[in-house]
């Protein structure tokens, strides 16, 4: 349940971005990027957001979450595959020499503020 602390940090960060842009309005929409291997549950993030956003400019904002997959490159069969979860064997040939890249993103991509 560390999603709660993540959403706390997220709300702080969004408010910082608004201050920087000199905006005091209401946030309509927020875009997040949470990679499949980030170990963060998107449902829990939404749940924590509904708990923590009230009373902040983010109250009622629509939360859009992109969930990029990771790429797994196999050094045995040279396959390059997209994966949803961490694997220690190549899904294609069963090889064990793998390089896994991406999928660990945890980003506040953008916020859309009422004009």
């Amino acid at each position: 349940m560390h999603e709660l602390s993540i959403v706390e940090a997220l709300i702080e960060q969004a408010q910082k971005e608004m201050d920087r842009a000199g905006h005091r309005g209401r946030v309509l929409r927020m875009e997040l990027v949470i990679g499949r291997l980030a170990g963060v549950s998107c449902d829990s993030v939404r749940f924590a957001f509904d708990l923590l956003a009230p009373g902040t400019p983010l109250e009622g904002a629509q939360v859009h979450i992109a969930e990029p997959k990771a790429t797994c490159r196999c050094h045995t069969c040279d396959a390059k595959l997209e994966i949803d979860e961490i694997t220690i064997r190549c899904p294609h040939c069963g090889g064990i020499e793998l390089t896994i890249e991406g999928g660990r993103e945890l980003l506040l991509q953008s916020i859309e503020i009422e004009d």
Partner: protein
Amino acid sequence: MKIVAAKKILKANDQLAEENRQKLTAAGVFCVNVVGSPGAGKTTLLEALFAALDGRLRPAVIEGDIAGSIDAERIEKLGVPVVQINTQGACHLDASMIAAAAEDLDYSAIDLLLIENVGNLVCTAGFDLGEHLRIIVLSTTEGDDKAAKYPAIFQGSHALVITKADLLPHTNFDTRRIAADMKRLAPKAETFQVAALTGEGIAPAAEWLAAKCAASATDD
């Protein structure tokens, strides 16, 4: 109006962790984040390591627990300076808690700061505390499938300490399986097999820690 931020959500924690690390490095304190499940034997391992180091380093401990000070009292009995953090229900320590706890420690009197994180294999993986090394503690009774099931915490660790090795004959823990998983997840990590209560295997782990600590001191 749309503001494009594209910033890490835990940037605030990461920045504070970096500040913690710089302060520790500047003061010549080597810091280790000790993670593992509740009951893996983290505190018992620390006790055994201190006994093996036998005054060679000047250690201190930050104990992270959801409630109480049972672990801190055990460390205090050894004459090692200890600060207890109660997370009030939170499942992990974060960099700001370490910064606050550090105010109660005299860095000039310490060479090695061990942070015993809250017992948890999930949440502790996401929060850099400002440590120089992370050690994952896994007991034989937890099972050999933990690295495959909780890869993130194993992946970012610099050493695996398998505890309760004296119970191996009574479990179906396969050390080859965990070794194979670690080879994929953290190929550079060291693995130690210990029984902290009997002292078996503790010496090599303590030597490794002392060597890491010494190497970081000469780097400065």
